[in-house]
C-alpha cells in the first residue's frame, strides 16, 4: 500500500508542476506587470511608483532565466520570475496579498473555519438524507412511487443552485422570517446563520444525489449475492442495509471521499449570498480585485486538494472492498 501511495504521489508531481506552469503563464504572460501595478496603486500612480512597485515585486526580472549580472557581478540564472514563482508555490512560501496587504497564509487560516462550518454539516446531512431516500426509492422500484420520485429528482436536478439560494432565502428568511437573511458569527451563535445555507445546500444536491444512489443500489440488488442472502432467510431490511449498502459503497465512496478535500474550499455562491466569510468569498473577492497572489495560491491549493482527494478515494476502496488490491 505504501508503495502504491508513493507511486501515486510521484505521478502527481507532473500534475502539480503543470498547474504551477499554467498559473505562471496566466498571471505573468497575459497581464503586464505595469498593468497589475497600476491596478494596485490606485487611481493615479506616478510612473516612478509603478516602476518601484514592479521592482519590489521582482516583476522586472527576466521571465525564465536571469543571465544579467547582479550588483555583485554574479549571475543567478534561476533568479527569474518563473523560478521564483515555482519556489513560492512548491515550498509553500506564499506571498502577501496585493490588495489586502496580508500574508495569504494568514488569510487562509481566517477563512477555513467559516467554510468548514457550512460545508461539513451540509456534507454529512446530505449523505444522511440522500442515502435513506435513495434506499427507500430503490425499495419501491418500478412502482409509481418510484416514478414520481424520479420525476421530482429530475426537476430538482434541473434547478440551478442559484435559484435554490434566491428563492430559499426569499421564502424562508424574508417572507416567513424563520432565519436571518445574511450574516455570520464566529462563536457558538453561528448556528443561527448556518441553518438556512445548510438546508439549501442539502436541498440543491438532493435530486442528483438520490438519483445517483438509487442507480447504484439497483445495480447491486440484481446481484447473485442478494438472491443468496434472501434464500438464506435474511430479512429485506437486512439485505438492504447490511449487504446492498456495503457493496454499493465503492461508487458512493468515489463521490463522497473525492469531495472531502473540497469541503475546505467552501461554497462560493452560498458564502456570497449568506455572507459567510470563508474560502469561497476570499476567492471571489480576489478575482474581483485582481489580487493575483491570492488567486494563484488558491488555484494551487485547490489542485493539491484534488490530487489528495483522488488518492484518498483509491485508498478507501480497499476498506470497503477486499477484492481491490494495490498494485
Amino acid at each position: 500500500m505504501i508503495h502504491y501511495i508513493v507511486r501515486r504521489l510521484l505521478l502527481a508531481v507532473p500534475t502539480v508542476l503543470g498547474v504551477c506552469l499554467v498559473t505562471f503563464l496566466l498571471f505573468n504572460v497575459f497581464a503586464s506587470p505595469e498593468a497589475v501595478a497600476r491596478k494596485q496603486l490606485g487611481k493615479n500612480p506616478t510612473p516612478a511608483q509603478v516602476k518601484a512597485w514592479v521592482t519590489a515585486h521582482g516583476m522586472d526580472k527576466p521571465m525564465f532565466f536571469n543571465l544579467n549580472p547582479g550588483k555583485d557581478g554574479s549571475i543567478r540564472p534561476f533568479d527569474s520570475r518563473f523560478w521564483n514563482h515555482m519556489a513560492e508555490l512548491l515550498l509553500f512560501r506564499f506571498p502577501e496579498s496585493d490588495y489586502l496587504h496580508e500574508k495569504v497564509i494568514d488569510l487562509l487560516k481566517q477563512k477555513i473555519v467559516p467554510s468548514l462550518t457550512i460545508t461539513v454539516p451540509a456534507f454529512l446531512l446530505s449523505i444522511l438524507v440522500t442515502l435513506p431516500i435513495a434506499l427507500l426509492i430503490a425499495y419501491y422500484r418500478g412502482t409509481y412511487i418510484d416514478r414520481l420520485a424520479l420525476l421530482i429528482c429530475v426537476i430538482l436536478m434541473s434547478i440551478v443552485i442559484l435559484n435554490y439560494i434566491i428563492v430559499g432565502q426569499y421564502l424562508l428568511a424574508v417572507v416567513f422570517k424563520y432565519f436571518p437573511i445574511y450574516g455570520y458569527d464566529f462563536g457558538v451563535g453561528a448556528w443561527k446563520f448556518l441553518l438556512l445555507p445548510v438546508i439549501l445546500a442539502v436541498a440543491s444536491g438532493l435530486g442528483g444525489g438520490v438519483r445517483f444512489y438509487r442507480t447504484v443500489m439497483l445495480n447491486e440488488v440484481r446481484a447473485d449475492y442478494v438472491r443468496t442472502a434472501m434464500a438464506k432467510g435474511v430479512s429485506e431490511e437486512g439485505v438492504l442495509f447490511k449487504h446492498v449498502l456495503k457493496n454499493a459503497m465503492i461508487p458512493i465512496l468515489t463521490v463522497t471521499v473525492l469531495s472531502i478535500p473540497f469541503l475546505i474550499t467552501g461554497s462560493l455562491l452560498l458564502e456570497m449570498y449568506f455572507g459567510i466569510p470563508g474560502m469561497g468569498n476570499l476567492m471571489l473577492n480576489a478575482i474581483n480585485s485582481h489580487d493575483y497572489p491570492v488567486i494563484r495560491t488558491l488555484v494551487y491549493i485547490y489542485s493539491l486538494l484534488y490530487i489528495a482527494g483522488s488518492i484518498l478515494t483509491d485508498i478507501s476502496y480497499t476498506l470497503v472492498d477486499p477484492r481491490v488490491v494495490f498494485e
Partner: protein
Amino acid sequence: MKSIFSQLQGGKGGLVNLSSMNFVDRKVKKILGLAVLFLMAFVPSCGNNPYPPESNKLIGYTALGEDPRTLDPAQSSDTTSAEILCQFYDSLYQNAYLDRPYRVIPSLAAGYPEKRIFYEDIQEKDRRVKKARMEYVFKLRNDIYFQDDPCFPGGKGRRVTANDVIYSIKRLADPAVRSTGYWLVAGKIKGINDFFNKAAATGKADYSLEIEGLKAIDDRTLKIILTEPFPAFIYVMSMPYTAPVPREAVEYYNAPDREGFSRHPVGTGAYRLKSWKRQHRIIMERSPSFRKEYYPSTGAPGDRESGLLDDAGKQLPFLDEVWYTIISTGQPIWLLFLQGYLDASGVPQEQFDRVVTKNMELSNQFVKKGISLEIASDLDIYYLAFNMRDPILGKNKYLRQALSLSYDTDLYNQIFLNGRAINAHGPLPPGVFGYDPKLKNPSKTHDLVKAKELMAKAGYPGGMDAKTGRQLELVYDIGSESTRAREVATFDMRCFEQLGIKMKLQVNTWSQHLERSHKGTFQMFSLGWIADYPDPENFLQLLYGPNAPPNPNSSAFANPEYDRLYEKMKSMENTPEREAVIHRMVEIAIEECPWIFNVHSPSYVLRHSWNKNGKSHSISGNYRKYVRCDPEMRRAYRKAENKPNRAALFYAVALLLVLSAPAIVNKYVRRRK
C-alpha cells in the same frame, strides 16, 4: 405494488418480514415526529435578527459593499476603505458636514493656514528664471491626542505634533508603503520627489532625511512649501492620506510577529477600532480621547426645516458604536433594510419603480413605514472618450461632434439608470465651483439630422468614406466581459450606427483594456471619474495635455490654450476671474469634443425614521460622528416587521405528509396482504 425483493422472488412477496417492517415503521415514525417537532418549534424561534441581543449602547447599523482593503491612511484609494478610515483618522481639515457647496473647515488645525506666494531664482536650461512658490503655515490645535493604544508607553495616547504630519506625508513617498496617495504630493511639495527617488534607489526610505518643503517650526506649527501656487492643496490636507499617524504604531504593528499597521488604526478620530473580521464585520467604538467637538449650528438651505439642525451645539459623537456589516450583493442590503436591521440603504435598480414615483418622490408604502428619501448630487462624470491620437477620430472634430450628436443620453438614462441621472453638458458636475447650470452643449442635443450633416462635413457622408467609398468602421472598447458592460456597449454602438458607421466591439479583460488605454491603441471607450476633492481642478486635469496616458487624460487630449488656462486656473483662488477661466476651458472642451459627456449620477438614499442627522456626501469624510439614532423607534419597527409565519410551516408539514401518503398507503396495503 411490489418491492424489488418480492419481484425477485417471483412477485409473491412472501419473504417480506412483517415484524421487521413494523420495526422500521416505528423508527421512521419517530424520526418523522422529531423532524416535525423540530420544524414547528425550533425553526421559528431561531428568529431572523442577525445581531446579538441588544445592549444599552447606542449602536448604528450600516452596510459596506466590500471589505476595506486596508486601514492604513497612506494606502486608501477606494471609497470603502476611506469610509472606515475617516472615522478613525482626522486630518488637519474636514468637509463641513451640512454646507453645500462643499467647504473645508479646520479639524485638527487651529484655523485656516497662513499662505504666501514668493519667488525663487532657479536655473532653467541656459537661463535664470523666477519661479513662483507657495508657502503654507499650519497651526495645530493643542488638545489633539492619539487614541490610547498598546503602541504607546503605558498604552496612553500622546499629543499630536507637527512632526507626526510630516511623518505621514513622508510615508506617502516611501515606495515600501505602496501609497495610493503619492500622486497628490508628488511634484507639488518641494523636495518630495528626491525623497521618493532616494528611497526607491536604496530600497529603504530614510525618514531622518529632511524634505525641503516640509518643516516643523515647533510642535504645533508646520510649514509646507509647494513648488508652485496650488490653492486646492488645502483639500489634500483634508484627505485621510495626510492624516497624522503615530510612528510608534507603524513600527509596533509592522513588527514581524504582528498583523501589520494596516489592520490596527491608531488615529485621532471620534471612533476607534473595536473589532474587524475580514469579509464579515467592522465594529468601531467611541474614542474616549476624542477632542471636544460640537454639532454644527449652520447648514445648507432647507437643513433646519428637515431637522438637520435639531442637534446644533451638542457634543459629538452621538453613537457609542457603529457596526459595519460587509455585504457584497445588493439584495441582502435591501432586505435587511426593510426588516429594520440596517439604518439606511440605497435604492436597488430593480426596486426603483416601486420605491420612487415618476415625480422622483418616495412612494406611499415606504412613507407609511417612516422611511425618508434623500436625492443628493454626487461629484462625478461619466463619459465616452475618443482617442485623440487615433488617425481617424483624433484629427476630425466634425466626426467627433457628429458621434456626440447621435448619442441619446436621455434614453441611456432611462434604460440603465431609471432616469435618475443628470445629463452632462461639460466636464464639471453640479456642486463644484465653476459649474454652470445654464450650460448647453450644442453637441448634446441628440439631433440626427445635424449629426448626418456633420458626418458629410467630416468626409463621411452617410457613414461612407468620401475618398475610398468604403464604410467607416470604428472599434468600441470595453474593459469588462460582464453582461451589463456588453448591454451598455450595444446601446452605445447602436446610437453611432444610426450614422451609417459600422461599429465593432472589442471586449477586453481589465488588464488588456488598461494596456490598450496606456498604449493608446483604442479608438473609443466609456469611463467615469469620481472627485477626490471638490475642486474643479480635479476634473479639468483629465483633459490637461501633460496628463496623457498612462496618466488620467485617457483620451490624450492636448490643446495649447486649454493647457495654458489649466496651469493658470490651478493656482488661482475661487474668484470670478477663476470662474471665467474655467468657463473658457469648458468651452474649449465642448468645441473640441474629446469626450461625449454622458451623465452625472446622483445618489438616492433611504433612511429609517430613527436614523437622525443623515446627509449624503460625495467626498469621504468623518461623518459618522454626526449621526444619531432612536433605539426605541428601531426596536418597535423591528418587532412589527419580523414576526415569523408559523402557519406556513404547518402547511409545509401537511404537504410533506400528503406527498408521503402513497408510501404510507402502500405499506398499509402490503401489511394487510
